[in-house]
């Protein structure tokens, strides 16, 4: 017994030493991309796929000699959606050689780390919170912001309502997580609904682990359209419950970019999801499967059939492509030696007006006072077993200016 204890203690100390003395891998010219993401927590369902895409593209770049000879070091950290862990993780890696960009997957983490990122003069990426657009600092959004997507969907609903021969404006219900993210969409989205005259019902917020959503749905039964927030498979389950209640026949369900993904919700509960519309800032479904870069990355590094492509894979490629483009600009401007977060920040601001993502997202709009990667969205609908496009790139209305942040 004593011996076992001693051995265990030894192993533990050894592990500690290894982890602490972990070298910073300063071999060749490298730059680092830090991703504080959730691999084992509530948003792992989609975050993992996105991170995989990012990792794949960086591997691809490194295998082909890097960006002008500079290799990219990708550091993923599992935060488990916990702010303290994220901060700890960031501080551990903040002195990494040429750390240029940190990515914060989760609204609270982004907010908590904002002052640190700003002080360290880093570029940081964050999901889609309007606050960062309203008060632009050094943070850049992955795509457009949540409320813009919601407003674009409201526009789509109004048009769809008219095209079906109805007069006036539709009644819209809103369902979301009972969290900061769930409420973010209405900070601006609500004002936009008032502006265009859509009748927005009282929003419903549900806890993340809810088994039965019928109470929320029942209260929205008079709506013509229902927007379902939350991260897949949550929206899928909501719509499935609605399907059980027979609501999918009369009500059109619309989701955001965290909504039903091709290989997740759509495949698992295909019948219930028929006709559901998804609003995204990247290409999805059949479009994504046809896209040459996505296809290449997926087949090369994941080695699975293309029809198993997870929906949000394109988002991660978006991060990587933006990073690559900005790195090229920064290297040209200041060279590797002087490369730092500030140079990268300037480079990111110069990305606007170009098609960086090869059509995965719309034309880039990053600029000195603009933090949205693009201002366009695309609508997809579940038809049969596929997620098919029902529109081209549509300009999303700017609803940030309507809300007082």
């Amino acid at each position: 017994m004593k011996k076992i204890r001693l051995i265990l203690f030894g192993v533990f100390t050894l592990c500690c030493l290894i982890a602490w003395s972990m070298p910073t891998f300063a071999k060749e010219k490298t730059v680092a991309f830090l991703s504080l993401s959730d691999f084992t927590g509530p948003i792992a369902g989609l975050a993992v796929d996105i991170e995989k895409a990012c990792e794949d593209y960086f591997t691809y770049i490194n295998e082909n000699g890097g960006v002008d000879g500079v290799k990219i070091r990708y550091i993923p950290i599992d935060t488990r959606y916990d702010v303290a862990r994220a901060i700890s993780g960031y501080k551990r890696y903040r002195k990494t050689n040429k750390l240029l960009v940190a990515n914060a997957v989760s609204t609270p983490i982004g907010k908590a780390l904002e002052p640190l990122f700003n002080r360290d003069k880093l570029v940081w990426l964050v999901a889609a919170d309007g606050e960062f657009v309203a008060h632009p600092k050094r943070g850049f959004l992955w795509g457009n912001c949540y409320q813009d997507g919601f407003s674009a969907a409201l526009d789509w609903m109004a048009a769809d309502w008219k095209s079906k021969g109805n007069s006036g404006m539709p009644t819209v219900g809103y369902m979301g997580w009972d969290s900061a993210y769930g409420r973010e969409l209405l900070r601006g989205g609500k004002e936009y609904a008032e502006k265009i005259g859509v009748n927005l019902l009282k929003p419903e917020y549900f806890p993340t682990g809810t088994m039965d959503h019928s109470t929320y749905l029942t209260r929205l039964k008079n709506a013509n359209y229902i927007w379902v927030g939350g991260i897949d498979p949550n929206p899928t389950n909501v719509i499935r419950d609605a399907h059980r209640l027979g609501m999918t026949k009369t009500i059109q369900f619309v989701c955001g970019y965290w909504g039903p993904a091709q290989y997740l919700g759509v495949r698992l509960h295909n019948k219930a999801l028929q006709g559901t519309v998804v609003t995204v800032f990247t290409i999805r479904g059949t479009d994504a499967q046809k896209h040459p870069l996505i296809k290449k990355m997926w087949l090369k590094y994941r080695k699975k059939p293309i029809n198993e492509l997870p929906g949000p894979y394109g988002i991660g490629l978006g991060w990587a492509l933006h990073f690559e483009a900005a790195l090229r600009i920064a290297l040209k401007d200041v060279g590797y030696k002087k490369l730092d977060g500030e140079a990268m920040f300037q480079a990111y601001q110069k990305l606007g007006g170009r098609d960086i993502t090869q059509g995965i997202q719309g034309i880039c709009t990053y600029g000195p006072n603009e933090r949205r990667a693009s201002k366009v969205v695309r609508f997809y609908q579940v038809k049969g077993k596929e997620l098919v496009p029902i529109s081209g790139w549509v300009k999303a209305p700017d609803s940030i200016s309507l809300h007082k942040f």
Partner: protein
Amino acid sequence: MVDFMQFAINGILVGGLYALVGVSIVLVFKATQVVSLAHGQLLAFGALFFWIFLDQLNFPVWVALLGTISLAALMGFITERFTIRPLIGESLFTAFLMTFSVFMFLDGFFQLYLSGQSRAYSPFLPEGTFNLSGVIISKGLLSSFTIAMLIFAALFAFFKFTRTGLQMRATSENHILAQSAGIGVKKVFTLIWIISSAVVAIGGIACANVMDIHYPLPYIGIKGLIVAMFGGLESIGGALLAGILLGLIENLSSGYLDGPLGGGVKDAAAYVILLLILIVKPYGLFGLKKIERI
């Protein structure tokens, strides 16, 4: 009125599943006095095994079910044998923390297997709905509720009429006395963990049928804990009633209070009621009041 019925019926049907999770915790507590968090993971793994058997290996439903139950029982056995057994004689606190550690350990495996993806069963319960004058009852939920009730009936019969059941009831009352009467208490512990894991695995299948196998599935274990406390940690019937009540309270509160209070009432209301009940009846609805002597 139709709304009320709809809320109530869905609440009861979901509550039946909560009850199943709650009773598995009650079983373990009754025999071993250990409050278990590990059951959340046993539940998730039950659901996962069933998915592997049903959708990966394409076994018929009953084979998959048998396979799941035996694997879950094996997991329960291993958990008891290697983590709880060495702690016999230590404080119950420590045992509780052990179940938490087991939860974390298994959570790693669960996340490893899921790897961010979720899974859903290909339909194996009847689909579709009944419509009772406006109130819609899902056949899937109804049949999982029925299964839950059947398991409860089986548990009642087992404890009332079989010799092993009698021995378990005796053990749950007094370990030393049970030993002196020739009951192999350790064997009973193992057996009760096996039964309880099998029950919770079935609960897991039923829950996963409603909410898919994904990240929050193990956290239903906490709901089970509430049910167990609510009904009283020693009472199987209490767990049944408490589970159904919990489902009802959740649905009715979120049905009628979400509007005025601004959302997210579902969890909070259940806890308010739990607190109130504990204050009025400190040992749950049907828990045994321990007579304390100095």
